[in-house]
């Protein structure tokens, strides 16, 4: 099974706790015989690398340097995510099983790649705009929420890290509860649950 993970943070670039979570996830997946590519952002460390634990990373930078906020910054970064993801896809003879997009940043890319290649994606939620912005409804917040909505609507499966978040995603975005799966990071069944969701979504198997 081959998976492309999209995350706007990944060590050495750490913004919040998502970076370490995604790294832990990628390393554990590799140990479980899954080929993992991580597409992530860095100011200048660009290009494809195989890291010591076997995770293949591809870091991208923003083609448009001047921005008026995080939203427009993210929106011009997505095309670079699409470019390198497409390159990985073609170089792998199109044998990619699924994309796992973490939080809203690369949802536009995930949706385009789904529409173009019939490649399913999982939307892994770490946090939601409604909580980050304390319910604020300015056009800026609404734009991010509309991208989160798009992700929920287009994803084949939504992974959350707690029952609370499952209920919140259901409450805010009216996502059918069956579409959401809880995978608890520190629990015994975490990796097993993630793998199960990957198999169901990507249709691949673990090559041993």
């Amino acid at each position, binding site marked *: 099974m081959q998976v492309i993970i999209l995350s706007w943070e990944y060590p050495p670039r750490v913004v919040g706790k998502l970076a370490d979570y995604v790294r832990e996830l990628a390393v554990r997946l590799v140990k479980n015989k899954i080929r993992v590519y991580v597409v992530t952002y860095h100011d200048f460390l660009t290009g494809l690398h195989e890291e010591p634990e076997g995770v293949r990373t591809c870091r991208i930078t923003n083609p*448009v340097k001047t921005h008026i906020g995080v939203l427009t910054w993210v*929106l*011009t970064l997505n*095309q670079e995510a*699409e*470019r390198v993801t497409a390159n990985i896809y073609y170089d792998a003879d199109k044998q990619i099983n699924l994309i796992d997009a973490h939080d809203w940043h690369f949802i536009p*890319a995930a949706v385009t790649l789904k529409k*173009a290649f019939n490649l399913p994606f999982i939307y892994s939620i770490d946090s939601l705009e409604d909580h980050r912005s304390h319910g604020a409804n300015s056009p800026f917040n609404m734009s991010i929420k*509309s991208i989160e909505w798009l992700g929920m609507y287009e994803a084949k499966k939504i992974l959350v890290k707690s029952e609370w978040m499952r209920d919140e995603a259901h409450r805010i975005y009216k996502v059918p509860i069956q579409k959401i799966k809880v995978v608890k990071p520190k629990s015994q069944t975490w990796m097993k649950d993630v793998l199960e969701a990957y198999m169901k979504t990507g249709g691949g198997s673990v090559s041993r």
Partner: protein
Amino acid sequence: MSRRLSVMMLTWEFPPRIVGGISPHVYHLSKSLAKNGVKVYVVTCDFPGAPGHEILDGVEVFRIDSYKNPSSNFATWVYLMNINMQNEAAALVNRLNGEVDIFHAHDWLVANAGVGLKHVFRKPLLVTVHSTEVGRRNGIHSDYQRMIHETESWLTYEAWKVICCSDYMVSHVKWAFGLPEDKIRMIPNGVNAEEIGKAKKTDLSRFRRKFASPEEKIVLFVGRLVYEKGPHVLINAIPKVLQKVNAKFVIVGNGYMKEPLSSIARSKGLAHKVMFTGFVDDETLRSLQACADVSVVPSLYEPFGIVAIEAMAARSPVVVSDIGGLSEIVEHDKTGVKVYVNNPDSLAWGIVEVLLNEGYANRIKDNAYKRVQEKYNWDKIAQQTRDVYASVLDSYAKSFWAET
């Protein structure tokens, strides 16, 4: 290639959605390409009452759900709209089994969608640069403007070839984005001379009386009433013209300078000689152009100057300022009169030259009409565009992308 060459146009405006010049440009270009055997898909923003999918003059048009929630500003809306445009275009190309040979983007307004589609489907991207942020704003003065400028730069960087509509724009784009010259192609903008010429054939004397008395010559200005179009230069030229010839100045268009301009005209005691019509429909405009004794384009900045070409197609003699695209369109004393930029005396001289010499006026307007038919003809423009497509596909065929 066994099947027809096929191109997907990306544009934020397409009739009936008309904001500026890109909409009629893409419409005529697409229609003429289709007539020349190219399969054209247009992906554009939706518009109330216009169908989501239709075949219009041989062109297959898809109108996407443009982002309709409130946005913080125009550029943010553009980027958000591009998410939808790119997704719907990707789904469409997928349904067509990838049978799109070229993506052709028009201005930065579709930059994201164009660049994304290029890489996802590994097909060449072309861009037509209609205008630039640095040109529109006469420099870059804020982060917001710089963001748009860099988006334009990114688009031209990603494009296989960059099309500009005048030699002036070629040199401007080369300077603004640091592009190598061999990446840029000049293909002029076009007009539909037959359609515009139609108005001339009907009797317009009654129509004319709504704007001027029979003994008054009509001097026509068409354009947005903004600084770079130079309407103030015309207002300041009026007294000099009236010393020599009895004329009425008809000013068509709207803009933030409308009030100041009409108050200047009033304070100079010229109110009865100037008429501000505001925005008029196409038919009225064509009739006005047909009965104008002279059309003036006193712009201070002009990437192309379509309004001069439309006047020439309507067989109205033109007086233009010698700048930008206008310098290339008009050949002085042959197809029109060129005057110094931002110089009311020079403009008045040019207007009087045309109004007092009927033989001269007739000669330049006949020459101008012929020139428009030869050079700014959509059929010819479509063939030139097709040639650019062919040469791009030629080099594409030798790249490793062609094998994926």
